């Protein structure tokens, strides 16, 4: 039982590695944790289109926040 869980964990890790590699290839800019969150969301059936939009918007928001902070600084 434990070994099965272990094997499963290994498989998950491998999958994550592969995905990370693809993500790197595609230059998505996601780190491992973001990626794993995204994968989970996707696995729950979230619309990837929407998700990607959200991520983009979040990035922009943070960028603008940073710039505004810089400005204020």
């Amino acid at each position, binding site marked *: 039982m434990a070994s099965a869980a272990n094997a499963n964990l290994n498989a998950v890790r491998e999958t994550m590695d592969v995905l990370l590699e693809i993500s790197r290839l595609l230059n998505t800019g996601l780190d491992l944790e973001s990626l794993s969150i995204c994968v989970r969301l*996707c696995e729950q059936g979230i619309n990837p289109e929407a998700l990607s939009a959200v991520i983009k918007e979040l990035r922009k928001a943070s960028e603008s926040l940073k710039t505004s902070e810089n400005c204020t600084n």
Partner: protein
Amino acid sequence: MATLDQKSPNVLLQSLCCRITGKSEAEVAHQFQYAVRVIGSNYAPTIERDEFLVSEKIKKEMLRQRREADAALFSELHRKLQTQGILKHRWSVLYLLLSLSEDPRKPSGRVGNYGALFAQALPRDAHSTPFYCTRPQSLALGYGERSGALTASIGTSGISSMGVYTLNGPTPTPQSLLAGQPPQSAAAASQPLGSRLAWTLPMSSTPSSALTLPTMRPALGPPALSTRVVRTRRDGDTGEVSEAALVRDILYVFQGIDGKFIKLSAQENCYKIDSKVVLHKSLRDTCSRLAELGWLHNKVMKFTDARSVDRAFGLVGQSFCAALHQELKEYYRLLSVLHSQLQVEDEQGVIVCTENSLTLRRLLVWMYDPRVRLKTLAALVDYCQGRKGGELASAVHAYGKTGDPQMRALVQHILSLVSNPILNFLYRWIYDGELEDTYHEFFVASDPNVKADRLWHDKYSLRKCMIPSFITMDQARKVLLIGKSINFLHQVCHDRTPPGKITAASQSADTTKDAAELLSDLEGAFQEKIDAAYFDTSKYLLDVLNRNYLLLEHLQAMRRYLLLGQGDFIRHLMDLLKPELVRPATTLYQHNLTGILETAVRATNAQFDNAEILKRLDVRLLEVSSGDTGWDVFSLDYHVEGPIATVFTRDCMGHYLRVFNFLWRAKRMEYTLTDIWKGQMCNAKLLKTMPELSGALHQCHILASEMVHFIHQMQYYITFEVLECCWDELWNKVQQAQDLDHIIAAHEVFLDSIISRCLLDNNSRSLLNQLRSIFDQIIEFQRVQDSLYRSALEELTLRLQYEERKKQREAEGQWGVTAEQEAEEKQRIQEFQDTIPKMRSQFRILTDCYQGSVQQFLVLLMTSTDESLRFLSFRLDFNEHYRAREPRLRASLGTNRGRRLSNI
């Protein structure tokens, strides 16, 4: 990582927000709210759930960026991913990654400028489809691929919501949603966004800005003016129609449905933009130009709709409609592609309309070809109005004669469909002889009222107007002939050979397949096919007619019996008939004559003829008018029934009877003259004892030999110059004939030339009358000479009796004659001698009459145009006997010669 397992999407989202922005949960509350809304609002993905397609897209994207090695690496990784099978929604993850991917070569500097846009856009997204800033990969995709990929998304809420949205202008912005960042200030603050908009403006040609601020147009480019541009754009949307709305309208109009602004104006019969709508002139023009498509579409549509229920329009018409439908279907396919494209844009938002969005101008370019096609179709529809069948095919064919290869291909395609039923008819007709033409579309027409005996001549005819222009008249005639032959074989000859055996090249080739080829290659295969069928069928028909129905034998029989070719038979028949025929015509009985005919047949070589032919030989009495003798009404007849009646029609038989009558008369003259001559020869010796007669007899001999000469020459002319020549011609033609029509034609030519050369036609009526009078004088001469001989012989016998009695008395020793008797004898002789001058004068009159007739006849012959008749006149007057007597003859001969010389 493991701790995040099985958490709700919200928790995950929140951690994602934190992760990406790098802030605490409290700080990212707004972003998190937004994210939840976006994710929730559009739960159903608009893209297809196909992992393969997504991976292909990724690869393509990489190739586009010239990263072939990475593409290979990706496919390797992808394969690994597939083998592991941990993920259920692999496509989803891949799609996400693809969406997030960025071209590493591009500078990512612009990322920083989106904050304001994000802030602006949020309120819109509250009630509409999500608003993406850019999604280059979906826009850069190929046209066809996208259309294929996006058809699945038709029917989502995109159209309606977007339509309302753009038409009513932007909904009032809820101020509360994004605290501290009101739209105006955002717009004013974000200069970079302004410049971006300004950059997109010329591409998408936003109508509002162009209209309200015409002076701004040339200056749109510089970023300095961008703030005002943005403002006008946002304000201008209220009163005017955006291009996107027009595009949507136009797409409806393309299908003949009225749009919101562009409607079919009934009185002008064209699509017009509502005059109340404020719109720039160029857009208006473009719209009207595009709207033409709708009008053309309506036209074609109306035609096919009206015709497709009309059964009487026929098969050709139906296939024409089908062809039009096919074209329309193509057109609809294009429209649906455009529609789905529009839909994608709707779902992506308005401002995305950059390089690949639908604009009116783009439509103008894209719809150029379809418009040309539709125009051609509409022109065809106009031209084909009221035509059907072969005529319709001709009309379509006429349109194929164009230099434009595209149009020609289109018309050719339609033509191949249209001509398909015609070719079907044609093959049914030439191979089976069946005419399945319910709607009278084929160029062969059949008259159901015609009976079998006139089948060949009258039943089938060509409908000239239905001959498609790609089939020549010659071919059409052959086609008619082939089917007619088959029908003739079946119905008249009762020949039950299956059609497949008649034509060696039967329906091995299918009609549908080679319809198009045949049209393009009319000289070759089609012609050959028709020729082969024609040749085989005609040959078979002639074989059947000759073998089973003895056509050629009957022809020869006609010549032998009706044209007096069988000399011994005719002579014998005349011998036998003579006592019958001198009687008045009313006392003749057909059965007696038929009996005589049979006797004549049995006694002569005619008995060896085919029984089939002799059976048909019969006697016929013409209509009797008062004073006619048997000679005038007697005629031979030949019964023609069954298939040969097609060649020997009633008209032909009428001609034959006329010719027979003439020949019979001429023959009778010969026969009469023979009798006259016989009488002269027999009586010459006897009458030597009567010297007082010698003058009269001399006159008789001269006249008789003149007549004999004349009749001999006439007979020679009739036999050798007319009958034999014509017969030879006919026989050659019949031997070479390829079809029954040739035989019929040759036979008709034969009869016609015989009729005209025997002076039986209308042109030579005067000649014939002259000849008749000559013949009459021959008869008259025979009568007069007969009476002369009778009285002379009577006188002779009386004299001989007188002498004998004298001798007898002397032998008895008495006086030979008493004075009384002598006186009586003398008186009688005197009386007889008194009649002689009367007879001589009678002969003289007869001679004069006869010579006058002959001279007249010769004069007429000289003026005749027929060469053989002129030769006849030379022959009749070989020693210029008549010419010496008749000044007119001399004159006409001279002029004739002169004319002929001048002709040479």
